[in-house]
């Protein structure tokens, strides 16, 4: 796809169980939106426009996880309509914060939250899109980083590989000359096992990384969990550190479930 080809790539944005934050990141990419709008045809984006063109689409961006039977059917349709399917954000990529239900009984939650639980139909687990259909690319983050999104679109239009690194947050942390909070303050920082992309915002402001971008290319979560214990964190604190937006990613899951058994 070259930018001067006649055919403007059609983009669709699908929403599943999520907070809409990733779609907002797309809308927030203001300084690039005009260029994006000029280069692509935003054919289906219910959050932004009432215009809804039929598929097929060249690129489908999927926000959110699968939590209902209806979702599970809808993602199959979405996949069939998109040449390239990209998950955006921790929900779509790893199941999101709502995947914390996966270790508990969701019916119990439902009975606490809703006065008429009978109307609620939900699956036992919140699952990432890739557990249902093949995914071509993942944009990580909670929410995604708008520059990574724009980079993905620019690269796709130019027919080149997106420059989206899969190494740890620590590289971004050191490049911006932040002082390591794990070493200088003994904080539990998930940066070493988390994929770069946020620019190491939290360490730069004196906090440990929360792992929004999910597991990096070869996360050694077990070794980091051991270190958290050496730093004085108890089992509960360690589980909580790994169990947030990307709790259900298999790498973080394996590390926490092993610790739970100890």
């Amino acid at each position, binding site marked *: 796809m070259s930018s001067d080809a006649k055919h403007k790539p059609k983009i669709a944005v699908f929403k599943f169980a999520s907070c809409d934050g990733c779609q907002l990141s797309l809308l927030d990419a203001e300084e690039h939106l005009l260029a994006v709008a*000029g280069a692509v045809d935003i054919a289906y984006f219910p959050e932004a426009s009432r215009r809804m063109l039929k598929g097929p689409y060249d690129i489908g961006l999927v926000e959110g996880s699968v939590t209902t039977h209806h979702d599970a059917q809808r993602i199959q349709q979405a996949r069939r309509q998109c040449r390239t399917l990209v998950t955006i954000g921790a929900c779509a990529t790893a199941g999101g914060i709502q995947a914390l239900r996966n270790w508990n009984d969701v019916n119990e939650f439902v009975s606490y939250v809703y006065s008429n639980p009978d109307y609620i139909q939900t699956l036992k687990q919140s699952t990432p899109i890739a557990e249902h259909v093949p995914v071509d690319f993942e944009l990580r983050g909670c929410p995604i980083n708008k520059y990574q999104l724009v980079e993905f679109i620019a690269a796709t239009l130019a027919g*080149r590989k997106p420059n989206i690194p899969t190494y740890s947050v620590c590289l971004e942390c050191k490049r911006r000359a932040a*002082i390591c909070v794990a070493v200088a303050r003994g904080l539990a920082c998930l940066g070493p096992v988390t994929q770069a992309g946020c620019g190491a915002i939290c360490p730069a402001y004196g906090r440990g990384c929360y792992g929004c971008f999910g597991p990096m290319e070869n996360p050694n979560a077990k*070794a980091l969990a051991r*270190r958290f214990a050496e730093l004085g964190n108890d089992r509960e604190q360690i589980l909580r550190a790994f169990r947030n937006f990307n709790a259900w990613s298999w790498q973080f899951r394996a590390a926490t479930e092993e610790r739970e058994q100890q």
Partner: protein
Amino acid sequence: MPTRSASAAALSVSALAELISTLQARGYQVIGPAVRDGTIVYSPIERLEDLPAGFSMEQEAGACRLVKRNDGAVFGYAAGPRSLKSFFHPAEIKLISAERDNGTFRIVSDAPSPPRTAFIGVRACEIAAVRIQDRVLLEDRYKDTFYETRRAHAFIVAVNCTAPADTCFCASTNTGPRAREGFDIALTEIVDDGRHVFLAEAGSAAGKELLRELPKAEPAAELRKAAEKALQDAAGSMKRRLDTDGLAQLLYDNFDHPHWDDLASRCLCCANCTLVCPTCFCVAVDEASDVDGRSAERWRRWDSCFTQSFSYIHGGSVRHSPKSRYRQWLTHKFASWSDQFGTLGCVGCGRCIAWCPVGIDVTRELAAFRTSPAAVNSQGGSHD
């Protein structure tokens, strides 16, 4: 008795303040140690008060804590998290940008010219590291011109180490605690019995000329002796040691040692060790176009042999496993570096030990290979 000629001199604390203002008056941006975010780190310095008088850092494997000293020493700490690499070989730099122009394209070279920089508080190990980077980036077939311009105009005020950290082992690598060359001025700080002075030596014509401008006294023989003793004590007090004898061969012979698996179970492949190391020079060059395809930029960023993309060639990454990546780092620093560049790739600064988030200590890991060397490799060792 004031003197205007000698290349060694005794400077008072106020003369140190004048050193800073004189450098500023000559158009240098002054970079020196300052307390920031719980450490002592190279930062822009405006005046004497910005320096970390009365502070030190306690450093251990995976830990660094700011502590107070009760003697008011200005340079009573050892290597901090940043080294001169951050300045001479920047973490991120735009190499070029390009713009589409009537069916062709135009290269826009808009790199800002680097400031003239003076560094205060540079340690012997760091100067040794700069010499190693010179060898890699300037003295081979191709020159790194970005490094060259930043390096060329630097003025270096070294400080000999009298307070090594527990992570330091420069006495073993023969790169400290005394700076022997590669500086314009070298200071040794003496704080005792109510005196606070710096023994200053010039190491270059520029250093000599600058010293001439400062109020100073002829150093008494006793001061020289005190400085000598402080440096000897520092060398003798180092807690960590590294036996460099036959080190390269030891690593080559132990390519398949089970200790690499042990390391792989602890290492996070986070790359911190390589990024804080003052000699590691590896970078990645990325190009990116914008959405409408009108302009593109080429950026260079610090990279590390701990990332998967680092060894990517057609078909995949050569070093797929954490084990192979840790082995690359340790073997490059302590073995193949010598074959390539004629020295060790390590100057004993201890940064990789302190700033490893899980506290992996190269001196201990290397010693482990010595205590239980495996059988000499058969040809064609594993590549996992």
